[in-house]
């Protein structure tokens, strides 16, 4: 099956007065129709930026400086503004972190839904309103007929995020980019929203790119996961393999630092140090100063994604063509 979305060697730059910052460097992945791809990483890893680049909403002065993004085979990274605008909503929906700021406080929920529906589908006002009510019902909002005429402030945080999901689904998109959709919500609401998102996307046949920092959410929801570090993909593969048999030392560290619910550990595994800033990304592998398994080559050459069991990891440990490395020298 051809991929729905292909991202190839994507590079995003921010020109500043003190030189150009490379925020995303050589990011490649694809999403198949109906698939849920998780993108996980710590703050500043470039995961939200990847989402923003795909929906064409990079904040200036950020710009796509290289590579390409293809949607159903068609390049969308250099589309003119108006064409991209028609693309968004109809083909690619978006859900953002904060449900309060993604809704207009001055208009009723219904008006915002009807506007979005009519922008993308040829429906008259009555039919569009009916579809809006159906969407609200589908997202589990009780008394949808009455609540459609209420304003966003009359909804709670969880209910607002349901409205945002309804908005994202309004144009029947084939792909939804969800940027930390549950981070602003309480745990009990988070579980509801995640299962709702998963169910609705399956029913509508939409693929999802789920950006989050929460490994638990990824484990519950995704088919595949891409782990990002310092603007690059560190590891990508089926979610089960990445979680249970991580191939990249960063993924292993990330998994070990999450307090587990079923194992008692006196100390958590920790990765010393912090992610480098964009203006000080080290030579070679960006993770080398924090890596417990670092060796000489890591400080010199940057690894590309290499096959590592069921996943692919950007780590020289998995380079089978190179002579065997004896132990880790620090």
């Amino acid at each position: 099956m051809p991929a729905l979305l292909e991202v190839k060697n994507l590079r995003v730059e921010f020109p500043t007065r003190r030189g150009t910052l490379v925020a995303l460097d050589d990011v490649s992945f694809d999403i198949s129709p109906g698939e849920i791809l998780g993108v996980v990483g710590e703050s500043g890893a470039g995961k939200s930026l990847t989402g923003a680049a795909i929906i064409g909403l990079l904040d200036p002065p950020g710009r796509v400086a290289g590579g390409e993004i293809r949607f159903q085979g068609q390049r969308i990274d250099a589309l003119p503004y108006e064409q991209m605008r028609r693309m968004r909503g109809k083909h690619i929906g978006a859900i953002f972190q904060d449900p309060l700021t993604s809704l207009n406080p001055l208009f009723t929920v219904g008006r915002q839904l009807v506007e979005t529906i009519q922008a993308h589908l040829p429906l008259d006002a009555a039919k569009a309103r009916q579809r809006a009510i159906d969407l609200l019902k589908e997202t589990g909002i009780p008394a949808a007929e009455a609540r459609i005429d209420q304003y966003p402030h009359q909804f709670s945080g969880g209910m607002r995020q349901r409205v945002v999901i309804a908005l994202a689904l309004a144009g029947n998109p084939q792909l939804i980019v969800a940027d930390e959709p549950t981070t602003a919500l309480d745990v009990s609401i988070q579980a509801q929203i995640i299962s709702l998102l998963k169910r609705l996307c399956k029913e509508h046949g939409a693929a999802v790119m789920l950006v989050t920092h929460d490994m638990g959410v990824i484990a519950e929801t995704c088919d595949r996961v891409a782990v990002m570090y310092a603007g690059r993909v560190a590891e990508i593969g089926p979610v089960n393999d990445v979680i249970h048999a991580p191939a990249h030392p960063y993924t292993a560290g990330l998994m070990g630092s999450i307090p587990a619910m079923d194992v008692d550990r006196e100390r958590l595994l920790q990765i010393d140090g912090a992610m480098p800033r964009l203006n000080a990304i080290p030579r070679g592998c960006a993770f080398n100063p924090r890596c417990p398994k670092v060796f000489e080559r890591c400080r010199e050459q940057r690894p590309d994604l290499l096959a590592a069991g069921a996943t692919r990891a950007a780590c020289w440990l998995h380079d089978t063509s190179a002579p065997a490395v004896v132990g880790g020298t620090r």
Partner: protein
Amino acid sequence: MNVLVEVRDLVKTFDVSAPWLNRVIERKPRQRVHAVDGISFSIERGTTLALVGESGCGKSTVARLLVGLQAPTAGEVHFGHRNIALTLASQDAAALRRRMQMIFQDPFASLNPRWKVHQIVAEPLTEHGLVTDRAQLKAKVGELLQSVGLASVDMEKFPHQFSGGQRQRISIARALATEPEFLVCDEPTSALDVSVQAQVLNIMKDLQRSRGLTYLFISHNLAVVRHVSDQVGVMYLGRVVELAPKAEIFARPRHPYTRMLLDAIPDIAMSGRARTPVQGEVPNPLSPPSGCSFHPRCPHANERCRVERPALLSLNGIQVACHAVAEGRI
């Protein structure tokens, strides 16, 4: 046993009434929100009590009441067998404040951006007159920074030169300056990435062991709570609904709300354990439900739960406020 902190029937209400003129013209009554509604617990020396709950359940208010940042409406807090409210009004206030310190959630807001780290960490020392000699002060600050894994040369830097995790360590160093016995930590790792959270949690555990510290740990993350705590209190709408030793609460949760919270945690191990779907949302604290405040979301609620508020009952070392548990229905 050796109880360090004891809280008895603590109540805090906030006046959230409309302004006087509106009340007169629109005939609105005074309105009060019961942020903390009669809670009692005690913490033994050298142990950690964790309070968990969703936003708006009053856990942060409890933290502020305990260190005397806010005065309780009713009830008492005893610290080392002395009433905090009375002590803070007496001449011993400074001595008491020295013995308890607080760590706040946001390491970006809790450090003065215009002060060097040296000034920030030294302030409690000079304020309490513990160290007056400049050379000694410098040595002491260096020592404190080293105890949280920073270098003594870091004292010449400003907070913006540090990452979030490092800033939180500075907050911990500042809190430790007066050699307190009791630390109140209000969501100390919620603003941090997981790998950095692991570093901070490890430091907090090491310090507890080496200095015999007592912690009140406020969090909404049950996995973190499971890692750090000895006792766990679950709060819902200003009340403690279950208070039990850690092993007990995670192995055999009694209260339906505790069960729901545990069910809501994303399953990172992907063991495929059966989960009951979480339902409903936290009600508006301005108009809490009658009887047991959890009854609208509770699968086991009956007529009695809707009318009569359950008291916190002790059952072999575990305290639960639930009619269904008391009657043996669940």
